[in-house]
């Protein structure tokens, strides 16, 4: 791990090679009146890791991140961020992190440069180090040519890049990002991910939330969160592998009819239509598929294409939610 951050003493926390996690949540809970937004969440994020907290709106992602960044007090439980407790020393946490809120949090009536300078001042970045850092951030973000543009006049993707620049100007050891790619087009989304991967390569710990599963594959570890609880936590590949069963992409001549037939057939765990293609999850291709194929053909459905596909994290999520609901119902 090479971190220039250590050189200026900003890493604090643990010594190099220390096995203690960069972020450690311990039964972290937050209630708003009747609603338990975050319900006793515990997990660790290791130093230098890219961790994705993935779940739909209202699952508790933002509440969790706010607690980790010291701007929201937990109702119970605690979290150590860079070894500092968010309950006992929320201000201490703020020295170690950079937090990027979901809603654009910069000043729209300040220029790109003025916003960056403002955050550099707040974190007391030494004047001598600023030109080099700024140049690097401009290199990442391609914001250089827009230095004097008002932040409010930037496109959505550029705004997010600017937020990231402001978050990175003080070289935080831990980066907490709340849906940084929300509302950003695919091109800018890629650029944002490139910057994040660079940060991780430099040893920064990154915790990022997202509502969409396709981006989660980029993370070292993924926590799936639903209704304030972690329903699955592992490496993305392991999550997909543990899903079990096989997924086939089937392109029938009559999608709607085929879908109804497949959903009613035994041995089909799930079938969902994607355009003119049905994704069918079955236990075993050898055992289950021949019967299903025959059934479709007998009903007059032609199969234009059948091939096996890897389940996405979205499928993992759906299954985990179903499993969690079933467990809840059983109690």
């Amino acid at each position, binding site marked *: 791990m090479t971190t220039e951050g250590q050189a200026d003493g900003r890493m604090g926390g643990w010594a190099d090679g220390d096995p203690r996690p960069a972020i450690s949540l311990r039964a972290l809970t937050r209630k708003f009146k009747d609603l338990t937004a975050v319900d006793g969440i515990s997990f660790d994020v290791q130093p230098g890791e890219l961790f994705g907290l993935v779940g*739909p709106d209202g699952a508790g992602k933002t509440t969790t991140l706010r607690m980790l960044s010291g701007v929201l007090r937990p109702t119970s439980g605690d979290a150590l961020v860079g070894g500092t407790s968010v309950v006992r020393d929320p201000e201490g946490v703020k020295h170690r992190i950079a937090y990027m809120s979901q809603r654009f949090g910069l000043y729209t009536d300040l220029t790109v440069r003025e916003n960056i300078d403002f955050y550099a001042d707040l974190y007391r970045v030494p004047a001598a180090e600023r030109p080099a850092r700024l140049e690097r951030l401009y290199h990442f973000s391609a914001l250089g040519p827009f230095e004097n543009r008002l932040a409010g006049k930037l496109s959505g993707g550029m705004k997010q890049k600017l937020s990231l620049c402001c978050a990175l100007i003080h070289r935080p050891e831990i980066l907490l990002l709340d849906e940084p790619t929300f509302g950003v087009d695919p091109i800018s*989304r890629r650029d944002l991910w490139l910057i994040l991967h660079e940060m991780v390569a430099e040893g920064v710990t990154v915790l990022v939330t997202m509502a969409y599963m*396709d981006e989660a594959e980029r*993370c070292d570890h993924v926590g799936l969160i*639903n209704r304030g609880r972690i329903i699955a936590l592992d490496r993305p590949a392991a999550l997909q592998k543990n899903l079990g069963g096989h997924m086939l992409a089937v392109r029938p001549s009559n999608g709607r009819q085929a*879908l109804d037939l497949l959903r009613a057939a035994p041995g089909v765990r799930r079938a969902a239509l994607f355009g003119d293609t049905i994704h069918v999850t079955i236990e075993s291709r050898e055992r289950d598929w021949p019967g299903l194929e025959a059934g479709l053909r007998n009903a007059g459905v032609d199969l234009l294409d059948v091939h096996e596909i890897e389940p996405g994290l979205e499928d993992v999520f759906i299954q985990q939610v179903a499993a969690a609901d079933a467990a809840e119902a059983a109690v």
Partner: protein
Amino acid sequence: MSKAVDVTGLTRAFGDFVAVDHVTFDVEEGEIFGFLGPNGAGKTTTIKMLTGLLAPSSGEGHVVGHDIRTESEFIKQRIGYMSQLFSLYGDLTVDENIAFFAGLYEVSGERLEQRREWVLQMSGLTAHRKRMTGELPLGWKQRLALGCAVLHEPPILFLDEPTSGVDPVSRRNFWDLIYTLADRGTTIFVSTHYMEEAEYCHRLALMNRGRLIALDRPATLRSAMAEPILELATDDGPAAAQALQGAPGIIEAAMFGRAVHVVVDDAARATHALPALLKSRGLAVHGITPVRPSLEDVFVSLVRREGGAVIS
């Protein structure tokens, strides 16, 4: 069979800036048509012209048989529209919202009763009809919004990022409803940034810099993407990505999680050449596996080929 949307040479300029540049395409009745593109690509302008909110500078188009230049008022009455920031009133009950939109679309009497029951049943909100809309989970609100958008049974429905932010379960339920509508002949026109939504469409149109740069089935787009992608496992991803930038046969090399995704011009040749290339820089390769391009890869590749997105 008549087309639900049919545009030829559609163009719209704002001063010197050509937002939409001779766009030609058509949409079948009952088709789910996805409309993609980066910000500033001309998506919004095109949709405004199709929905009668903006007159084209040149070119022509018909939406459900009506001329977009001369019959825009008529078109407005016959389309349904639902945006991601849907316009339900949070402080009205489910019933009151339905009644409000029925009033807007002049649906009344017995037809209103029928449609109300249909919307409630379709959205699964029959038991919650007296609840405040603002209290409902996002997925339910989205279904109600969809119901309100099709209260007047429009032949074509425009959706703007309809399921952004909802959980995957709700999203699938939502799309099931969309498929049901499409099955009954309603044409669905979806504009979105999200590839998850694009996957659900029958055909996708991709816009960039005001032009239509691709139009096909998602699967075809994926397989037609000329440049293969290889996933490279190494000890030092960033160094490998750096070393590969600009190397012969390499179009792009970028970190993807811990791995490096390398876009190459020829998969077989690259698989063969990459280990040696990296070894000469002191980097060991643990594995090279081809990656099935995602729709996002396709999107990025096509946009790059067309000169990149407009940066503004």
